[in-house]
């Protein structure tokens, strides 16, 4: 119970918000973006935060999920669930095949390779117009139904996205406290020592790469059905960077850090709209400032600060008790 206390509180807030404010723009419209971004950031954090492997191409898997749903339902007339399954199959094969050669690379070379992967997939979305509809994308996706109940309002979508996001967060928290999670942290800490403890580092990295790609893929499918529409713009290099920023902004390696980072970065543009042309400039400035002064990320910095204060308090109590 204690282990997941934060998770229960978070779930409660997430699920109660739309009941309290069913017609609020920030809950049912911006909220959907927030929820999907949290899922993506949490999945990316598995790879970047836990295993320490940077990826500048995560949007590619998100996009492949979305486009698979669009293509298999509209062009080939499959049922949406079958389409989601095909998407997962494609992303599984692609990420599995690429994972070993890509994750053999380190540091900036890894950044380059994942960046390249993301850009190649994006160019494919733009250029392969017979399949992907080119720059205009594909519209008219059918809505998703669960046990015959169509998900046809923003509020219903909110709950679908929320449940998916909460499952992602739960899986991520579970992994952190487990043999698999420790193996990932070990790879992050020292790859050589990890190997000497019997960890097949190549395999561990490959598994988490595939796992996080699959989560992004499902997120993509859900996103496509909710929007009824896919276009390359949503899956560009810039979005990959945004996802990395979310993870780092909250605090690399912390699931709730990724949640906080995704939340901030998703609502920030909404808040900056009032600045009109200054929006881009201010966005860049905020990003730089936070990273310069809080390199551990907002959430982690605050968490550490609280832990530090608690530590000092306990020290003081010990001192008082002994004097």
């Amino acid at each position, binding site marked *: 119970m204690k282990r997941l206390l934060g998770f229960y509180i978070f779930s409660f807030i997430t699920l109660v918000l739309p009941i309290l404010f069913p017609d609020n723009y920030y809950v049912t419209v911006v909220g959907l973006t927030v929820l999907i971004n949290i899922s993506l950031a949490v999945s990316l954090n598995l790879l970047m935060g836990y295993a320490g492997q940077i990826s500048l191409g995560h949007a590619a898997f998100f996009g492949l999920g979305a486009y698979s749903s669009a293509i298999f339902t509209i062009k080939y007339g499959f049922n949406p669930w079958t389409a989601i399954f095909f998407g997962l199959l494609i992303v599984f094969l692609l990420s599995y095949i690429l994972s070993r050669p890509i994750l053999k690379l380190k540091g900036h070379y890894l950044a380059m390779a994942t960046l390249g992967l993301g850009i190649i997939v994006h160019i494919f979305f733009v250029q392969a117009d017979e399949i992907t509809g080119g720059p205009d994308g594909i519209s008219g996706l059918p809505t998703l139904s669960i046990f015959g109940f169509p998900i046809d309002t923003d509020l219903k979508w909110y709950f679908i996205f929320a449940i998916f996001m909460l499952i992602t967060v739960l*899986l991520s928290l*579970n*992994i952190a*406290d*487990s*043999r*698999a*999670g*420790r*193996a990932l*942290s*070990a790879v*992050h*800490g*020292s790859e*050589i*020592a*990890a*190997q*000497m*403890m*019997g*960890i*097949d*580092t190549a395999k561990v990295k490959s*598994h*988490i790469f595939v*796992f996080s790609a699959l989560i992004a893929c499902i997120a993509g499918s859900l996103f496509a059905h909710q929007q009824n529409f896919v276009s390359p713009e949503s899956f560009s290099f810039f979005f990959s960077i945004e996802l990395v920023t979310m993870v780092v902004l909250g605090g690399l*390696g912390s699931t709730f850090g990724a949640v906080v980072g995704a939340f901030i970065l998703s609502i920030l543009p909404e808040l900056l709209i009032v600045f009109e042309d200054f929006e881009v400039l201010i966005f860049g400035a905020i990003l730089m400032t936070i990273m310069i002064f809080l390199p551990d990320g907002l959430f982690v910095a605050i968490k550490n600060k609280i832990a530090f204060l608690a530590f000092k308090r306990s020290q003081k109590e010990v001192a008082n008790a002994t004097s």
Partner: protein
Amino acid sequence: MPLLEVKGLEKSFGGLKAITDLSFSVPEGQIFSIIGPNGAGKTTLFNLLTNIYKPTKGSIFFNKKDITKLPPFKIAALGISRTFQNLQVFMNMNVVENVMVGCHLRSKSGLFASAFRLPSVIAEEKRVRDMALEALEFCGLKDYSSQPASALPYGILKKLEIARALASKPRLLLMDEPAAGLNDTETMELCRLIEAIRDSGITVLLVEHNMGLVMEISQTVLVLNYGRLLAKGSPRDIQKNPEVIAAYLGEG
């Protein structure tokens, strides 16, 4: 029947030969020390034994099995573990988690089971934690178990590496300069710890500059000089060997 056997081992880095035609064998149950001046190739030898470096020539047998070409994690699975001269503690974890990583080979839940926290995982977590605490206790680190590794002093981290290596229940433990940077009390404790490790049935291969410690606890001492075997024998023989005195002991 030796536990570890090295035959005609060679390693060169570009033009530099760090290990040249080295052959020796380590009997089970000993504290077997390797000494030699800085740059003699001791760490390189450890890296070759664990296949972190690929040998240029030669072969290595552990428990009669050829391990020359096995990747490090498979060598670990056969029962070789080690500590590092340049600490390789997982600074992103706390003490007990570091040692729990050492239990990796003695547990088995994979990513999927862990993510869904199947009942088997919950049971295993508890078992692994107990194993780790046992190793910490053995090394006298139990009080530190919930501290973050990054907050600990050097001497504790050195012991932590030993505890982590022991947690994998190896048959052979390689220790690279465990006493470096320790004060006298800590060195004494280390001395007892290494003997306790040997007495628990683990063969110890020790690289160390502290001659007092080496001569006190080793059964066999091997002297490396410029990557070649200079002498091998009991501590007593080595201390008397004129070549060793000239090349190494004489200096200091």
